[in-house]
């Protein structure tokens, strides 16, 4: 857990509530947009964390989602398209004690900002990335994005998109991310719990949030949120629990070697044979991230939600400051006049 969470327990900071995080700015997303729910869950969870709001910074890129910081009564920066991760890296490196949150979209993080996205993951700054994935460019009014499925008909692809989409979680694992999770705008409880877990992870927490853009890509994720389909199409991951899904929790996932297969508990398969979720298992996390079939495919695997992977690995900013500390111990505090004079001087009278 972050040390900052202790403060509230000690009663030193007055208790914050959600409305303390609301700004005087009018929220400008389209009515019905999934972003509203995400904002609400963030404003619900953050006060519980016990971090004074002046120590919190939200940094975003450009996109509908990236408007987010304007609505959070914390420090915030609405930067430029794709670069929030890079800005946050510099802030966290210089001010490690701050709680830094990045808000980004699928285009922002994975298209124009793809490079910084993979690099922040490998460096493992202790920040939280909230990737609002709506599989579309919202702000620019409906072009396909790097997560849009092949064949997607959008403003810029009237005959269907030719691009093969990114799998954001597989990409994050490939970049050696240390906390990889997926959640959705329409499951407030799950979203909240995922945010809590993301915050308590020390390292870069990558949270992909399926977000409905009701104007340009309405219903992209309804299959995972609608009552009729949800139970069959989603696989809710829980640590140390078997992978079970289905209408009546009657289906399970078993590993045949490295191959996941669906078994029916109703037809006599035993829960003991099922794959038990282990957040620390990188190999299994990679297999889980590949549960990415198009739901129209016959016998497809359900889409997992929850924490796929968590690993404790040193953070860049700590290493940086340790290195500075050890040089300081070894050399002593630098003396400017000695630096200016250098090693060899001569005097002219």
């Amino acid at each position, binding site marked *: 857990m972050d040390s900052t969470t202790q403060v509230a327990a000690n009663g030193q900071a007055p208790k914050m509530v959600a409305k303390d995080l609301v700004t005087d700015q009018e929220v400008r997303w389209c009515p019905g947009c999934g972003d509203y729910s995400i904002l609400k869950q963030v404003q619900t969870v953050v006060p519980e964390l016990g971090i004074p709001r002046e120590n919190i910074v939200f940094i975003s890129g450009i996109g509908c989602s990236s408007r987010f910081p304007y609505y959070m009564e914390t420090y915030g920066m609405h930067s430029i398209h794709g670069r929030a991760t890079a800005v946050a890296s510099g802030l966290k490196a210089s001010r490690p004690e701050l709680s830094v949150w990045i808000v980004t979209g699928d285009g922002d993080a994975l298209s124009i900002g793809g490079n910084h996205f993979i690099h922040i993951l490998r460096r493992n700054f202790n920040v939280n990335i909230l990737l609002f994935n709506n599989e579309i460019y919202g702000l620019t009014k409906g072009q396909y994005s790097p997560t849009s499925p092949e064949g997607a008909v959008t403003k810029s692809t009237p005959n269907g998109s030719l691009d093969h989409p990114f799998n954001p979680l597989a990409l994050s694992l490939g970049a050696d991310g240390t906390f990889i999770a997926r959640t959705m705008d329409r499951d407030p409880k799950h979203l909240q719990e995922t945010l809590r877990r993301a915050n308590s992870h020390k390292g870069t927490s990558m949270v992909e949030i399926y977000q409905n853009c009701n104007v340009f890509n309405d219903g992209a994720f309804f299959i995972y949120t609608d009552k009729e389909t949800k139970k069959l199409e989603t696989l809710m991951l829980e640590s140390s629990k078997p992978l079970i899904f289905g209408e009546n929790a009657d289906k399970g996932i078993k590993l045949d070697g490295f191959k996941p297969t669906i078994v029916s508990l109703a037809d006599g398969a035993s829960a003991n044979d099922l794959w038990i979720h282990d957040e620390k298992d990188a190999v299994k996390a990679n297999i889980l991230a590949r549960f990415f079939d198009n739901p129209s495919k016959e016998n497809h695997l359900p889409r997992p939600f929850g924490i796929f992977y968590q690993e404790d690995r040193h953070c860049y900013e700590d290493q940086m400051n340790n290195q500075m500390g050890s040089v300081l111990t070894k050399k002593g505090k630098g003396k400017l006049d000695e630096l*200016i004079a250098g090693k060899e001087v001569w005097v002219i009278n």
Partner: protein
Amino acid sequence: MTKTNEVLDSVAIRFAGDSGDGMQLTGTQFTDTAAILGNDLSTFPDFPAEIRAPQGTLAGVSGFQIHFGSVEINTPGDYCDVLVVMNAAALKANLRELKEGGIIIANIDGFDPKNLRLANIAPDQNPLENGSLSKYQVFTMDVTKITRAALANDSGLGVKEIDRSKNMFVLGFIYWMYNRNLDHSIKFLTEKFGKKPDILDANIKLLKAGYNYGETVETFTTRFTVEPAKMAPGTYRNIMGNQAAAIGLVAASEKSGLPIFYGSYPITPASDILHELSKYKHFGVRTYQAEDEIAAICSIIGASFGGHLGVTASSGPGIALKTEAMGLGFMLELPMVVIDVQRGGPSTGLPTKTEQSDLLQAYYGRNGEAPLPIVAACSPADCFDAAFQACKIAIEHMTPCFMLSDGFIANGAEPWMFPKSEDLPKITPPFITEFNADGKFLPYKRDEKLSRPWAVPGVKDLQHRIGGIEKQHETGNISYDPENHEFMVKLREEKVERIANYIPEQKLDSGNAKGKMLVVGWGSTYGAIRSACTKARAEGYDVSHAHIRYLRPFPKNLGEILNNYDMILMPEMNNGQLVKIIRDKYFVPAIPLNKIMGLPFTSHEIYDKIIELLKVEETVFASNGATK
């Protein structure tokens, strides 16, 4: 045998060889020794474009020129007096830099059939033998053979390692020729190879062998003495431009109390600033090698938002990548320093060569109306002051600020009468910790400089949001109001213009306050212009020199100065950039003088132009007089 001794005012020596021959090291060693012996000096390293070009070829030639003297030295020397060449390619590539009658010292071994072939010279056209060098004084020595012999039995080194040290023999010989002592280089070698006694012994042995060779061999009968220069009294050190820039940043950090966050992506010729700063962790400097230039500048935006002094450096192509983020920095009104160590452009251009390529990029290279202050360094040591001033402007005026340097001064060296830290001005960051309006915080409320307060995360109650979208005056809230936008554009421009109230007035570097001609320069052309003007004035020509450090905003009196002369000449190592801005702003008919060869001006090139223009004027006046 007796040797004669001749006293000289100044000498330019060029060391040239294959990139593996250690010519840069030889040159810097000679430079440091000359500096310690009190000579004024200026250097010019001429790197090959390829890091590992095939040995012995023209592409692999690396050169280093040092001009040192007992008189004022402003340039690395138009032409060299002595050319030391390790092989045929080095001679072929550098002969045009040698004065007529100059001295060539050649390593015979580098002119064997193989080396001739690599240099594209016919086997029967060895320049050391075919009489083509009759205009010069040629001395040959078989460096390879002598060094191998000197270390033959007892060095414990293989032939390869022995050959690699042969530059020390050459250095020792040149030390002898110019009556220098070996102390500095012995000390240097001891520090460098202290842990490898075999190599240390071999290097010192060769250094001494080179020196003794001069003493004993009969072909060399003359030694030269260059007395210390009569420089202003004070304490000096020798310094290179990138080094000076790095130290200037640290000084600004100390004087402002802000830790440096340096985010950068490697690029020639700016990388040495990163290398240098990465050694200064005990000064609180954080260096961050980002994944690209965009990430580099964005990381410093984050750091500056957090209350640190964000600094980034690059060269032309990298600066281009930083463009959008600079616009963001401009809108956020956060202090940041962007250093552009310019090189030949466009595109990848001439990475290892110098050019004043990016003034227009720095001036205009952003979308929308986004003026940024620009400070230019004019010599290696001046990079300290330029970097310091750029930080001061950035911090006290809450803006990104450009510092322009270039490959020539970044890698060049000169003696520097360095300041004491206590004499440097204090820098005051406009931090704010309380409300600045009744019961609230207005992040874009402005002071008399028109700059805004700096509230950093962690300060209670001053939470605020900033971004690149147009803002309402004072509140900083998003605003699409048409009147507000025009107002804000003008306001931000005026803010940058007002910096003119806080920088020194433009001074003349030399010459009369009114007269026939003013030569106006900026950046690294300083030394060449200064020498050219001094020479022309000594011959009776009425010419003055002004060198502009603050390129945006210009000093308030610049227009007035420009109007005091009949003619304005503007030498630039580009196709005419400052000249466009000056003409546009002051409506003066400035005459450009351009050199776009990846090489610095020689003072003669500028001198010749001055004379040409002033002579034309004389004849015009004379003929006018005749008809009257």
